[in-house]
């Protein structure tokens, strides 16, 4: 084994340490957190996730998608004014909002699935609050330096340099915030046009107010409030306790190999005292964006960003111990290892119980096993998630792009004409749900002798009408159906109104009723 390097402890305390020790008023003033930059696998992963999520957010509205001349060419567009939602090759009408609802259900179940397997991965990696806070901390570090420099700057008296650095930091925050709020509105209108209008002051008031509000929330939540949003405002940390079980991976301080911690390990070892792997250097606390000490165990504040794992692994490399003093571990695994480490007589952790004479971890220690991911609970979540997705996909592929909706007049229910015929009025809505103009044939079936007339369509009474419907539009028609007196059945008769596109062979049928006087 290499000569272990000397690790100097960092002077830092978990922000929630006080509350754990003595009873104090419920309100505690915020202590500012200046996380140290972590280096390692999880930091790299977080950079990548940040790049991907921010990239998706900023770039998506600018992707073009050709839908022909009758529809917008923006790949993702929520057209509120015309009540259409475009997503690449999919176009959603308001009555098809169930697909969006289905996606939300899938997102919910997906969150349960991910949480039950890898804990609060959403919080740690992809939540906008985390991503933007991470970005803002990086900006802060760019202008003000690493943790120690930032602490010094905070304590320093006001000077030109301090004002300059703080101003630059907050201007950067605001620029990012404006860009964040600005990107949002492009999802709701043609992005290039809106950008031009926005810059020339011609965009709608709602565009400016939306940008202003989102700029403010981004700046306040990401730049100023940061971890307080997670701790005090977000419901998810409260719900997560119900989502985790003993097989969920959570960021864990493995005190079965870390304790008793010691800052003077060599000296203590020389004195023959038991010494765990933890050198109590506080590196895990210093890198924590939430400012907590993971060695206190699972806690509400932990967003499982795993930066403490990176920090501790680096320390373990230097002290010549194997990595994983802080690691993703399940409660079951942890409890097993803890049982190995604790001397039942003294109820104390004894490092000698987990390591053999050569300093290797004994075989009884359990390590992470990928098989744990495929347990019943996660399979049930996955099955439900995939089933909803599959059903939605199938119904999306087979959904109608031509529809007819019919409302029977309520007042009067029927009208007697001068020749004794009975006439019923209907509001018929033809839905052409493709971005092409179509000629749709509306015809009447199953009502003997009956004919239709349609207001505003210059055509004599008949049983079939050719009606032009504009691209991606609904056309509402007043349709009157009359039946000659000798063929009228008293009471209610069912018949069919059929729409047909003779080019694409799409049809839709409405089972309508014809009302006549009772005998």
């Amino acid at each position: 084994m290499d000569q272990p390097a000397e690790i100097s402890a960092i002077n830092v305390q978990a922000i929630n340490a006080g509350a754990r020790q003595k009873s104090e008023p419920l309100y505690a003033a915020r202590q500012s957190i200046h996380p140290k930059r972590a280096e390692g696998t999880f930091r790299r992963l977080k950079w990548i996730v940040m790049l991907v999520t921010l990239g998706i957010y900023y770039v998506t509205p600018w992707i073009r998608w050709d839908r022909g001349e009758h529809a917008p060419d923006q790949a993702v567009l929520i057209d509120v004014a015309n009540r259409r939602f475009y997503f690449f090759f999919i176009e959603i009408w308001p009555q098809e909002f169930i697909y969006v609802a289905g996606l939300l259900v899938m997102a919910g179940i997906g969150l349960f699935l991910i949480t039950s397997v890898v804990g609060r991965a959403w919080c740690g990696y992809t939540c906008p609050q985390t991503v933007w806070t991470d970005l803002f901390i990086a900006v802060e570090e760019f202008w003000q330096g690493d943790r120690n420099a930032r602490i010094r700057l905070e304590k320093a008296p006001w000077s030109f340099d301090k004002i300059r650095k703080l101003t630059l930091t907050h201007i950067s925050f605001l620029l990012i915030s404006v860009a964040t709020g600005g990107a949002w509105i492009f999802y709701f209108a043609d992005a290039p046009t809106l950008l031009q209008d926005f810059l020339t002051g011609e965009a709608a008031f709602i565009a400016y107010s939306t940008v202003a509000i989102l700029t403010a929330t981004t700046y306040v939540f990401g730049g100023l409030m940061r971890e307080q949003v997670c701790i005090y405002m977000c419901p998810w940390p409260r719900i997560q306790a119900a989502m985790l079980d003993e097989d969920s991976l959570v960021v864990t301080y493995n005190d079965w190999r870390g304790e008793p911690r010691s800052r003077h390990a060599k000296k203590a070892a020389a004195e023959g005292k038991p010494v765990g792997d933890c050198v109590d250097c506080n590196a895990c606390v210093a890198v924590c964006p939430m400012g907590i000490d993971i060695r206190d165990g699972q806690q509400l504040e932990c967003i499982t960003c795993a930066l403490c794992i990176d920090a501790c692994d680096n320390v373990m490399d230097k002290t010549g111990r194997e990595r994983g003093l802080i690691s993703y571990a399940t409660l079951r695994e942890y409890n097993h290892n803890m049982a190995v480490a604790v001397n039942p007589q003294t109820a104390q952790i004894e490092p000698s119980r987990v390591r053999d004479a050569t300093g290797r971890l004994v075989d009884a220690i359990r390590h992470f096993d990928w098989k744990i991911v495929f347990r019943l609970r996660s399979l049930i979540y996955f099955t439900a998630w995939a089933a909803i997705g599959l059903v939605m996909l199938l119904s999306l592929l087979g959904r109608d792009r031509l529809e007819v909706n019919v409302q029977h007049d309520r007042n009067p229910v029927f009208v007697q004409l001068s020749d004794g015929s009975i006439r019923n009025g209907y509001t018929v809505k033809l839905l052409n749900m493709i971005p092409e103009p179509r000629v749709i044939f509306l015809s009447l079936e199953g009502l003997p002798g009956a004919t239709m007339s349609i207001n505003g369509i210059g055509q004599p009474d008949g049983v079939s009408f050719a009606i032009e419907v504009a691209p991606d539009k609904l056309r509402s028609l007043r349709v009157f159906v009359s039946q000659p007196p000798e063929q009228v059945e008293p009471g209610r008769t069912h018949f069919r109104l059929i729409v047909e596109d003779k080019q694409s062979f799409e049809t839709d049928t409405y089972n309508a009723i014809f009302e006549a006087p009772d005998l």
Partner: protein
Amino acid sequence: MADNDKKEIDELSGVETTGHEWDGIRELNNPLPRWWLWTFYATIVWSIGYTIAYPAWPLIDNATAGVLGWSSRADLADEVSQAAMLNQDKISAIQSAAVSEIAADENLRQFATAGGASAFKVYCVQCHGSGAAGSAGYPNLNDDDWIWGGTVDDIYSTLMHGIRYDADADTRFNDMPAYGGDEILTRAEISDVAWYVRKLSDQDFDETAAANGEAIYADNCAACHGDTGEGVAELGGPNLSDAIWLYGGTHAQIAAQISNPRMGMMPGWGERLGEAAVKQLAVYVHGLGGGE
């Protein structure tokens, strides 16, 4: 006084108490947070300014108007006139076009139908019903039986000038003699002609009586109701050969109408609603399904 200045401090929290104690429980004198207090004062100042700027203080028979002169009625009037401004193009197009032109133009027709529907609900439903289906004595406007003609122009004229409406010189007017009341025909003759009218409209009838009634009909009724009872729209003579009866189609009802006719009255709306509104009403009524 000076002796009472001693403050009692709660040991556990280190906070001064108010001196109030219930069952050994003492009340801490925690001050309100300063931001809260200042916000509270700010709302007081704000409310004073508000009552000066806006209508607020109740007086005996009205209230202070507020120096800004704001009123919800003025707001509403503004909104109404703004809405009118938005529709100004269409209203003036309707004003200058003939009713038949409006009915032929898809855009104007839709606008006029919507406008006519809302005017109908205010001015017409009292007699004709909300679905325009009428009732006994009040014509159903959905059907294809029109006493004074069912083209959009005919309907427009009827709406403009009314029927038997004294205040308008151009009103539609006719008067059916009271054949029984004025003793022009005898009871038997009236009964016979009523049976003949039932024959004209393809209903069950008394053969002999109808045969007697035929000549009486030709002498007294055909001038206004037509030789075969088909009606004369120019004169407002109702069609007696169809299935639609304003005052009922039984023998007794027909006879009663011949004897002492009821004749409806409709006001002319031109002066009251203006040309544009009446044109919209005409287009709406014509589009109810029975328009010719």
